[in-house]
C-alpha cells in the first residue's frame, strides 16, 4: 500500500486530456478571470450560432434600425414639427410630396416626423411595461417553483386571479378613474402580462429543481440562495430572456391598441395616437392612406423584428428545434 506522499503530483502521470484545447496560461489561473473568460467564450459561441440564422439577423438589423431612429430622432426630424402650430407645417391632408415624403396630417404636420418621433414613445412604453412584467413574473415564478407547498399554492392562485383580469376593461376603468396617461398604459400592460411569464418560469424552475446537479449542490451543503443564484437562475435565465423579447413585441402592440382606442395620453405622439387621430379625422373614408400606413407598418415591422429575434434565440436555447 502506497503512502500518500508518493502520489503523483499534478504534472506526473499519463496525460488524459490531450484531445482538449490547452487551458489558460499559468498567469491567468485566477478563478475570477476564469469565470470571465468562460463568459466571453460562451457569448462568442452564442453569437456565432445566432449569426447563422438569416431570419434572426434580419430581425436584429431591423431592431437596431428602430432603436437608432428612436435615439437619434432629434437629428432626423425637427421636434418643432410635432407642434400643431409649427410654421414648418404644410397644407393639411396633403399626399406625399417632395417636401413631405409621407404627406401631412390634419394639422399639416409631416407624417414622417410623427412616425419618427412616435417610435420613442412606443418603444419606451413597450420596454418599461415589459420590464415591470418580467420582474414581477420572474420573481413570483421562481419563488413559487422553488418553495413549493403553501407559498406555491398562494402565489399561483394570485397568478390565476391576475390572469383572468381582462385587458381592455381594466384599461378603460383605470383610464377613467385616473386620467389617461402613459403611466396608466404602462401599468395596465405590466399588470396583465406578468401572469403568463410567472407560469412559464415556475414550470422551468420545477424542472430544473429536480435535476441531479441541483441535488448534488444540495448534498454539498448549498443554501437556498446559492442554489437559486448559481444553478436555477442561470438555467431559467435564458428562457426568461427569450420570453422577454416576445413580451416586448406584445407590449408595443398593446400600447398601440390602447392609444388607438383613446385611452392613452392624447398629447403624446406615438404610433397609436397617430392612428387614432387619423381614424378620428376620417382618414379611412377619404382615402388618406399616407396617414395610416406608415405608423401601421412601423408597428408591424417592430413586432416582426422582435418576433424573429425571439425565434432565433429560441432555436439557440432549445437545440432540438435546430434543423438537422
Amino acid at each position: 500500500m502506497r503512502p500518500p506522499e508518493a502520489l503523483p503530483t499534478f504534472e506526473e502521470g499519463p496525460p488524459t486530456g490531450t484531445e482538449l484545447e490547452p487551458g489558460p496560461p499559468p498567469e491567468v489561473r485566477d478563478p475570477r478571470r476564469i469565470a470571465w473568460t468562460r463568459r466571453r467564450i460562451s457569448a462568442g459561441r452564442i453569437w456565432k450560432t445566432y449569426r447563422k440564422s438569416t431570419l434572426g439577423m434580419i430581425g436584429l438589423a431591423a431592431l437596431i434600425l428602430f432603436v437608432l431612429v428612436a435615439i437619434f430622432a432629434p437629428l432626423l426630424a425637427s421636434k418643432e414639427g410635432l407642434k400643431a402650430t409649427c410654421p414648418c407645417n404644410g397644407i393639411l391632408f396633403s399626399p406625399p410630396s417632395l417636401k413631405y415624403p409621407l404627406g401631412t396630417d390634419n394639422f399639416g404636420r409631416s407624417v414622417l416626423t410623427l412616425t419618427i418621433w412616435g417610435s420613442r414613445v412606443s418603444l419606451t412604453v413597450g420596454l418599461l411595461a415589459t420590464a415591470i412584467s418580467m420582474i414581477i413574473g420572474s420573481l413570483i415564478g421562481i419563488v413559487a417553483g422553488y418553495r413549493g407547498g403553501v407559498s406555491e399554492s398562494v402565489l399561483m392562485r394570485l397568478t390565476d386571479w391576475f390572469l383572468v383580469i381582462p385587458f381592455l376593461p381594466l384599461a378603460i376603468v383605470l383610464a377613467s378613474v385616473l386620467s389617461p396617461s402613459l403611466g396608466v398604459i404602462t401599468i395596465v400592460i405590466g399588470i396583465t402580462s406578468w401572469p403568463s411569464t410567472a407560469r412559464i418560469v415556475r414550470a422551468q424552475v420545477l424542472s430544473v429543481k429536480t435535476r441531479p446537479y441541483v441535488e448534488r449542490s444540495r448534498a454539498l451543503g448549498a443554501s437556498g440562495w446559492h442554489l437559486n443564484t448559481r444553478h436555477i437562475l442561470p438555467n431559467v435565465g435564458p428562457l426568461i430572456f427569450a420570453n422577454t423579447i416576445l413580451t416586448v413585441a406584445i407590449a408595443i402592440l398593446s400600447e398601440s391598441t390602447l392609444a388607438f382606442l383613446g385611452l392613452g395620453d392624447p398629447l403624446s405622439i406615438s404610433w397609436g395616437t397617430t392612428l387614432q387621430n387619423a381614424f378620428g379625422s376620417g382618414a379611412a373614408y377619404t382615402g388618406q392612406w399616407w396617414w395610416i400606413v406608415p405608423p401601421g407598418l412601423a408597428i408591424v415591422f417592430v413586432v416582426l423584428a422582435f418576433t424573429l429575434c425571439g425565434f432565433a434565440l429560441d432555436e439557440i436555447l432549445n437545440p432540438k428545434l435546430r434543423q438537422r
Partner: protein
Amino acid sequence: MSGAALGRASASGDDDPVLEVHDLHVSYEGRVGLGAGVAGKKAAVARAVAGVDLTLRRGEVLALAGESGCGKTTLARTIMGLEQPNQGEIRFEGEPLSKSTRILREYRRRVQIVFQDPTAALNPRQTIYESVAEGLRIHGITDQDGLSEEKLVARALARSGLRPPERFYLVYPHELSGGQRQRVVIAGALVLEPEIIVADEPVSSLDASVRGEILKLLLGLRDDFGIAMLVVTHDLGLAWTIADRVAVMYLGRIVEIGPAEDVLTKPLHPYTKALLEVVPEAGGLTRPILSGEAPDPTRIPEGCRFHPRCPEVVSGAAGRAGVEARCRGEDLGLIELRPGHFAACHLAAARRGDVVPSTT
C-alpha cells in the same frame, strides 16, 4: 491531506465505525383525493426503508445490493441528508446528526455523493473548474494546506486521473466523454477531502470497457486516502470486484450482510441465493427461481417479507424443517449465523440451531 482522513486503510477496516445507522425508517405517503379523504380512505404508505441498522467502518467499502424498489437508493439518500427519516438515528463519528446547521454543514463536507448519471450531475452551463470548485465555495474554503482554491481544484482533478488539470478548466461537460465526466464528479467530491463517499450506481451508465478504470480509481481512493465507501448497486459482479462487505436489501430491510466472499459464494438467505443464481454466466441459461416481481412497498407481506416468493417455502423445505408457520407469521431481524455474517431467515437460523428473536 489533513486530519483524520490520512491513515491506514485496511481491507477489513478498523473497528472504528465512521457511520452508524440505527433503526432507520423512511416512508412516503401516497395522495388521497379530497373526496376519498373525506370518505375516510387513508393514503397508502410506502415504507421505502423499514428498519435498517448499518455500520460503516473507516476505510471500508460496503456494497448495498438489491433490485429496484428495495430501498437502497432511499437509504443512501437519507444518509446523505437529501431525505428525512421518519424514525431512527444516524451517527457520524459517534455523534448523532442533529438538526443543528453547523453540524449538518460539517457533515455535508465530510460525506460526499457520486451520482449514477454523470451527465446529469454536472450543471451544463458551468465549466469543469466551477463544478469542482463549487464545494469549496459553498463551504467558504479559500485555502487549505497552504494551497489556493485553484491549486486545490487542480489537485483534485489530477487525483481523479484528469491530467493535466489545467486543460479541463474551461471545458464544458458536454465536451467530455462519460468516463471523464464521472471523474469530474469524483474530483468534485474529493476536493473537500471527505471521510465517506456514497456512490449510487457509479458505473452503470458508463461503457463497459471504461467501468474498470473508474472502479480502479475508487479503490485507489480508499487505499490512498482511507475514504470509506458505500456503493449502491444492483450488480453483484461489481460488489464482488470492489466490496469488503455486502448488504443485500429486500423491500426496505437488509436481509443479509457479511464479508463479500461469504455472502457472494456461501449465501445464507434464499433471496441472495436466487439473485446469485441468475447472474448471467457462460454455460447456458439458468431458469430464474423467482417468478413475478417484488410486491410494491405499500403492501409488505406479513411475517417474513420474502415468504410469498421464497423458494424454500414454495418447495416445502421450510415446512419440512418446521419453520413454515414462523415464515408466514413472524417478522424477524438479522441474526449472526457465522462470525460477521448475518441473515434474516428462519430456515437458515433453524439449521444453525439458534433461537430466533422476533421483531414486530
